[in-house]
């Protein structure tokens, strides 16, 4: 297991000292893999990412129990400034560009973890992955379309040379064709740069297509895990996330009995 990059051991996260969101989450991520984290809203996926990246802190959240081991070092409750300098970069949900900065300035903020080092070749790399950004590089980010912004925030994260990239719902609110494009690029980044990726998604079908491994979360716990192929064929996953009956044909929502819809792995 020397390929292990990140390991969460039974972590609990509490916001404002009272609201417990994660109740003993354990997961492990191998180097150069794409690991997908699935689950409904409020399951704790984003909180898991924030626990890893240290962004819990400004939101008054804390890892109260368990350890987060990254390359053998304990990372829980460290400041985001420290964690990002270890090569973990989170791409926030809902894109969050710097609206009043141009595209190129946005990308340059990605060099904050290695201030003063040359960045020209990295800019070229980002434009190579996201040619759409090149055309708009002098324009303000606030005027870009949703797809361009998603590319921008992913490119911005790439500028930091991340070892571990945490992507929070990259497909949120994007047209299906753009989603396909974004996922193709995610896979290319993983293959060409060797970046390990944790992917949080609602779009389970797309996520399981590019991921190597998947975890399913519910109510602050991991309820299922396995390689992507196995999860894709799991009858419960097929029913709850991919919208198909066990037989494989697309299921009408009306056919699902309401008591069955409610019952998951609780």
């Amino acid at each position, binding site marked *: 297991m020397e390929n292990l990059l990140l390991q969460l051991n039974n972590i609990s996260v509490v916001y404002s000292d009272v609201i417990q969101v994660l109740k003993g989450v354990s997961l492990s991520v191998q180097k150069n893999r794409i690991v997908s984290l699935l689950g409904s809203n409020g399951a704790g996926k984003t909180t898991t990412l924030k626990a890893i990246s240290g962004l819990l802190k400004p939101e008054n959240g804390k890892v109260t129990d368990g350890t987060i081991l990254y390359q053998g070092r304990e990372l829980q409750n460290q400041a985001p400034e420290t964690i990002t300098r270890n090569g973990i970069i989170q791409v926030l949900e809902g894109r969050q560009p*710097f*609206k009043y900065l141009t595209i190129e300035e946005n990308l340059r903020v990605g060099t904050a973890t290695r201030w003063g080092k040359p960045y020209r070749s990295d800019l070229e790399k980002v434009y190579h992955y996201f040619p759409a950004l090149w055309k708009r590089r002098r324009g303000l980010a606030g005027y870009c379309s949703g797809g361009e912004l998603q590319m921008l925030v992913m490119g911005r994260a790439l500028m930091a040379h991340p070892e571990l990239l945490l992507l929070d719902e990259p497909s949120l609110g994007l047209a299906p064709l753009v989603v396909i494009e974004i996922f193709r690029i995610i896979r290319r980044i993983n293959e060409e740069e060797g970046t390990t990726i944790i992917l949080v998604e609602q779009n389970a079908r797309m996520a399981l297509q590019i991921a190597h491994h998947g975890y399913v979360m519910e109510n602050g716990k991991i309820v299922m895990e396995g390689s992507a192929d196995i999860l894709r064929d799991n009858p419960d996953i097929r029913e709850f996330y991919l919208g198909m009956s066990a037989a494989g044909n697309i299921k009408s929502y009306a056919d699902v009995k309401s008591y069955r819809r409610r019952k998951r792995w609780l």
Partner: protein
Amino acid sequence: MDFFIQLLVGGISVGFLYGLSAMGFVMIFKSSSVLNFAHGELLAIGAYFFLAFIVWAKLPFLLAFLLALVGCFLLGIMIERIFLRPLIGEPLIFVIMLTVGLAAMFKGIILLIWGGNLHTYPNFLPETLGINWGVVRIPPVYSATLVIGMLFLLLFGLFFKFSSQGIYMRSVADNQRAALSLGVHVKRVFALSWAIAALVAGMSGMVLGIINGVNVHDLSAIGLKVFPVVILGGLDSIGGAIIGGIIIGLLETFTGGYLSPSLRDVVPYVILVLILLLKPYGLFGLKEIERV
């Protein structure tokens, strides 16, 4: 006509100083949403640093000027480190009240050391700096002010537009969460904005001290003028602060010159109210970019 041009030049150069010190105020507000009520005292501290270096230490004026700037810069960093950093995460009103306390403290320290009398700098500006084109006569202080003002403006413009550190500072002002997620050292950005704010405020204080003499009450009162300036320009616009400063400076000198010197402190506020009636967010206040 020559009177008009003299007022114009005087107004623009004083306006530059207002604008520059307001720029410092806006920077602190943009990066950390803190209204700094100790801004006038920062102006005064700059002037007294300069006084100490030039009168007590008898340094050549250029060296004294640079040293005073460095002193202001370090003071800004110290204020952030000692007083503001422990308050990160506390309600904003605490931080704002803290700046009110800082104002009282700085004023007290200055009064303790220098007393409340008017001090003057020795006359060190060469007469050749003054401009003398026939009817147009501009005293050396004003032309020096214009040059220094534009130089600082250019320098900071370039810094914010092109340097990495300047871009990080703008990113924090724009979206603090996203900046944090990319590893921008947000606390360092706060410290740097206080340092730059103290530096430009101190610089304005020094030059105003050359023009009017150094007195802690007068200088901290000028610091209050930062408020009409930034409200006029828009609280979160650095360019607006400069233009707001020039407008207030011009209004003041023209009122003083043509109407009555006793009105010069009033008319700018009257115009301010009128402008705010028409543009409630100031001339260049934030217009949120909305994607439709």
